């Protein structure tokens, strides 16, 4: 079984600030990590390979330094890493990003399943996973919390919903996005770390993929950010002290006009 895991490198913290002069994000000094949700996608990709054989390929689109994210995934057990990096990809929104990833997956050709994290922690859109499956016209299942079985070219999995879950069956090849509940990611092994250090990472540029020029990067992105700003801070709160009885009484008093 061949698995493709799509990951994203994100800032480690969400405490990003705006440079008041240029009105752009200050990214310097912020360390990058693999998007936390993608760790579950990587783990699931490795587990499926261990169970069914085959290989797990990890792929990311980003600046050259996103290579670190691929190496980390490989230290955990992914077999191959592909970096999509080109100035032409810069400024991609979710439509252009999902198109670019889809075109790279088309080039990889042989796969049974694509796994993505349910969303990235920086943008929080949850749009790229379903976007990839739409471009490739694959069946999809989002918010997967458990794979029950994979048999005879069909997968049975649980999709998390607001009220509980649904059990869904679909044929391979397909795309799933996963939530935290699906597994507990492993730590890298020493052997894995050694191996990943020297592993070859394939870097693909726009020219390496069969793509329409006006569908990538800024040009291929219908959405445009026209303004960024810091939200107004929450006003300073009121702390009640004294004995528990007194504090609770004061709290109930300020809440008394509230309709519940």
């Amino acid at each position: 079984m061949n698995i493709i895991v799509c990951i994203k490198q994100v800032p480690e913290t969400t405490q990003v600030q705006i440079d008041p002069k240029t009105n752009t994000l200050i990214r310097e000094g912020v360390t990058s990590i693999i998007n936390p949700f993608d760790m579950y996608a990587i783990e699931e990709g490795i587990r499926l390979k261990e169970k069914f054989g085959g290989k797990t390929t990890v792929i990311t689109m980003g600046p050259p330094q996103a290579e670190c994210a691929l190496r980390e995934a490989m230290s955990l057990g992914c077999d191959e890493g592909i970096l999509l990096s080109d100035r032409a990809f810069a400024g991609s929104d979710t439509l252009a990003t999902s198109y670019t990833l889809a075109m790279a997956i088309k080039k990889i050709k042989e796969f049974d399943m694509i796994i993505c994290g349910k969303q990235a922690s920086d943008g929080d859109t949850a749009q790229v996973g379903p976007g990839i499956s739409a471009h490739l016209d694959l069946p999809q299942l989002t918010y997967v919390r458990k794979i029950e079985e994979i048999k005879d070219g069909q997968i049975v999995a649980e999709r998390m919903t607001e009220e509980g879950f649904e059990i869904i069956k679909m044929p391979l090849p397909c795309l799933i996005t996963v939530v935290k509940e699906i597994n507990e990611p492993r730590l890298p092994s020493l052997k894995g770390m050694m191996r990943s250090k020297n592993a070859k990472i394939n870097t693909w540029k726009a020219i390496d993929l069969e793509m329409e020029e006006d569908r990538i990067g800024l040009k291929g992105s219908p959405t445009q950010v026209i303004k960024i700003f810091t939200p107004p801070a929450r006003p300073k709160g009121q702390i009640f002290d004294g004995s528990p009885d007194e504090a609770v009484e004061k709290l109930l008093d300020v809440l008394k006009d509230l309709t519940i």
Partner: protein
Amino acid sequence: MSIKIISEKCVGCQICVKVCPFGAISMVNKKAVIDLDKCTLCSACVDACKFSAIVLERTFSKTQNIEQYKGVWVFGEQKKGIVQPVVYELLGKGRELAKKLHTQLSCVLLGHNIKGQAQELIYRGADNVYLIDAPEVANFLDEPYTKIVVNLIRKYRPEIILCGATTIGRALISRVAVKLHTGLTADCTGLDIEEKEKILLQTRPAFGGNIMATIVTRNHRPQMATVRHKVMKENERDKTRQGKIIEEHFDNSFYTSRTKILDIVEEVSSTINITEADIIVSGGRGMRGPENFPILEELAKTLGGAVGSSRAAVDSGWMPYSHQVGQTGKTVCPKIYIACGISGQIQHLVGMQSSKIIIAINQDSSAPIFNVATYGIVGDLFQVVPLLTKGFKEKLKR
């Protein structure tokens, strides 16, 4: 832009005839022929043709005939035949946007035996309801829902589409946006119309709410946005409102789905679903163990709210994951969020800091939760929470 049929590739299967929303394709000598007077270059046939026999030379940098896109649409998400509350909130916002654009507000409703719900959507602000009533779409399935919604958008060309940022909404609308090749902005907290250009201003948080961004889709239509539950305000129900219910029919090819539902399981333990709750009582590491959560349940029950939890309590196995609030759990926006024994790590704060009132109860006065709290009590939650429950019971006479 031009469209043509490569007759050597056309096998005469007639799929394109069925998918064309404008009836522009007919068969002549067992080959498809496009009537260019009726064709709007919507590309439905190009996507449907299995033999790559239809070629559309298109530019992706702009939607053609942009000025023909009119009207505001809301996706009418339903579960078990009940329209979800986020839809009414979107109709509230949609009404306001439609007014500014001097246009109509419509809702798309897919389900089975749901005509009564269509009327309700009109009472809540819709001018038109496009109704697809069929057993195959009783429950959400990614593929048929996508095919039908895409077809209707190509046919009626709305300029704006709003959809709830729910599990269903996010899966569906991302797929729809790609098929239509247009922009989609997730989780908007503000929507407005730019006066001069008459385009949709979509404001949303990024980086866990530490940055706000305003986004536009200037050259593509429809302009699509998702909005979380409880962000917009719903309209009052008005039983005198008039509107049209337009039933839409599709042939079987639209209803086929590669994904099949084997079972739907509801497992929200105790009280209610936290993303729907107006009041959430949440517990963290300070709860010390699962045996202490009943005091939170008691308070939640008194207030008609739900019980939430921090990641620490879920990871310790004290609460199920479906109750987790925060970056790797759910984002909530209740009227009142009561954090008990939660220190307030940033990962937790990003999931609840847009709550209207935050009440923090914690022993540690330097806990970061107090930085976002509207009201705080520094003290032992095992004393404070029961007193609070008792106080509310007296006040509410429950």
